[in-house]
């Protein structure tokens, strides 16, 4: 049994080393703390001044418009109107400095588009989101290497025939995924007992009835009547009659399968069918309205006989 009283002399060096290390740490720290640290918050006050000295790398669409005004105007009327040029093309300062000679990013592949458009439950229902596999099946694309830009121009993705901001106001159109997590197919019938919500046939009963009997009946209304939510109760609705919009589904292209919607050889189809020069300006719906749904006047839509 150890009965000797403990002796702590051998610990002196250890505690001395620890003490010296602590003092050194305090000295080193005092040297490393930036001079302006803590003056106006828990950061270097000088950082603000330094940040203002950085050369601007993003110049905004105004700089792009100086040379590419045609593209900027086109861009401004379509669905990507609020997406800045540099979101896809990267910072433009070097491109401007090189007077337009290169130094700009040209995005490639599907992933660039899917950064914003990949189907994510977190995104609001009204935002355009793509499940690539389902989308390709819907439009009959059989080659998985097909790119978004093979059909959609990034500057004019939906070929809108009018400026979206000038389109008609319309009460909010709900989608299933506004309430139901993960449910993306808006064409499925409502189950029995589903709470009443504002639906297309509420006002457009005659159109909806006619639509159900025609070849497009598997397509939800908003696939063609583009709707963009603007407030919590309303948005802009656009009936896009630009033929290129119809061709997003109906264009005859090598990457499409036999099951795809009927393919049209454009513009040869219009030229072949034209009886005179006036017909060369015809849009798809001028001849094929009966394939979609009966037309309806506004008074009928408002419930007046």
């Amino acid at each position, binding site marked *: 049994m*150890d009965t*000797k*009283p*403990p*002796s*702590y*002399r*051998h*610990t002196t*060096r*250890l505690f001395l*080393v*620890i003490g010296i290390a602590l003092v050194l740490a305090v000295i080193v*720290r005092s040297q*490393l*703390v*930036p001079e302006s*640290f*803590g003056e106006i918050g*828990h950061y270097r006050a000088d950082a603000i001044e330094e940040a203002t000295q950085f050369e601007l790398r993003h110049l*905004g*669409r105004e700089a792009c418009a100086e040379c590419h005004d045609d593209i900027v105007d086109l861009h401004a009327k379509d669905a990507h109107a*609020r*997406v*800045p040029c540099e*979101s896809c093309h990267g910072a433009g300062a070097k491109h401007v400095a090189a007077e337009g000679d290169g130094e700009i990013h040209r995005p490639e592949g599907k992933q660039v588009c899917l*950064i*914003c458009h*990949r189907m*994510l*439950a*977190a*995104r609001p229902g009204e*935002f355009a989101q793509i499940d690539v596999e389902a989308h390709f099946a819907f439009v009959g694309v059989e080659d998985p290497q097909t790119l978004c830009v093979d059909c959609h121009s990034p500057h004019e993705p939906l070929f809108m025939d009018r400026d979206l901001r000038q389109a008609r106001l319309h009460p909010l159109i709900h989608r299933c*995924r506004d309430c139901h*997590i*993960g449910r993306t197919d808006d064409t499925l019938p409502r189950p029995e007992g589903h709470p009443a919500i504002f639906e297309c046939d509420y006002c457009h009963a005659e159109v909806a009835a006619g639509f159900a009997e025609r070849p497009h009946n598997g397509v939800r209304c908003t696939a063609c009547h583009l709707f963009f939510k603007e407030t919590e109760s309303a948005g802009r609705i656009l009936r896009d009659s630009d033929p290129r919009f119809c061709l997003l589904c109906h264009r005859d292209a090598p990457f499409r399968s036999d099951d795809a919607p009927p393919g049209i050889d454009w513009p040869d189809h219009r030229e072949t069918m034209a009886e005179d020069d006036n017909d060369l300006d015809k849009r798809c719906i001028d001849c094929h309205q009966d394939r979609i749904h009966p037309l309806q006047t506004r008074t009928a839509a408002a419930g007046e006989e």
Partner: protein
Amino acid sequence: MDFVFPNEQNVTWTVMIVLYPYITGLVAGAFIVSSLYHVFGRVELKAVARFSLASAFVFLLFAPLPLLMHLGQPQRAFNIMITPNFNSAMAGFGFIYTAYLIVVVMEIWFVMRHSFIARARGSGPIAWLCRVILLGNLHEDDSTRAADHKIAKFLAGLGIPMACLLHGYVGFLFGSLKANPWWSTPLMFVIFIFSAIVSGIAVLIFHYMIVARLNGWKLDQPCVRSMTKYLWGFMIIAVSLELLELMSIAYKQTEEWEVLDMLIREKLWISYVILQYLVFSLIPFFLLGINSLFNLRDRITNAMVWTAATMLLVQVLLMRWNVVVGGQLVSKSMRGFTDYFPGLWEKEGIAVAVVIFTLPFGILWVFNKIVPLFPDAVSRD
């Protein structure tokens, strides 16, 4: 009105952040075992007392490595020490870690001083290294040993709340994030502490039995049986707390339960329900329970306990995965999920994680070459 749409498809806290609480937990658990001997006088644990202290130290050295691997600018990590922000939960790690490391290093110095002196009296680079560690003072007699014992006991006692604080703090990091329904619970740090103790005891059993077999040592059976009982007890508490937390949310049916229910049923069904609970909790529970309640033959006990300890090591890793990754799979909108599985060769991938987890075992081997971690080991023959 220019903007880019927010993106929730990436899981930012990767497998490195899974590994960080896991290794930190091993530290806390191993230290608790060491303290059971040094402070609470559980003499049956003497066989692994030094080994557990050394394990705590070595795992502690590697605990920040996954964090540094995760950082894009790891050199900036030290800013939390230079310009400390006491309101930052993240900064807390720097202080708690440093203080705990000092305590553990000092405890090792006092506990193993006798062994260091024995090596320092020889010649060669290891002897020279031991003289440096001893700060040139090789004096030893009964009174210095008595002092070493007293100080070591004090440091071991001081280390217990610090070990709890260190790992509780890791749980606090997750539990205090109120925006995440899978993490946000005051029970999180208690759960983390108990699961840390489970993983710490499990890694000691796992490693001790392998080392004993490789070296042809006879296992200290009372020590194994004692650790078995501790492991069984702590795993019951850890798993019960986790289940109680889950049941509490499920029973309350708060608005977040809708998405958490889907998270469990769809995203974590395999890793959480099947693996963490049904396989890697239930089987060790029975294996350890049988050995705690019945006196089986040593050979059978050792095989069952080693299996249970290994499974519990996996169980705690799964728990960390399900907490860290599971919580990030839920969209902030509570409407859906994203996916994550690490790549093999990524900077924060599986290969790097395996290397980081394996390195401490290598360092422990080196440690054992300097001072024996099992001084009382007896050969089987």
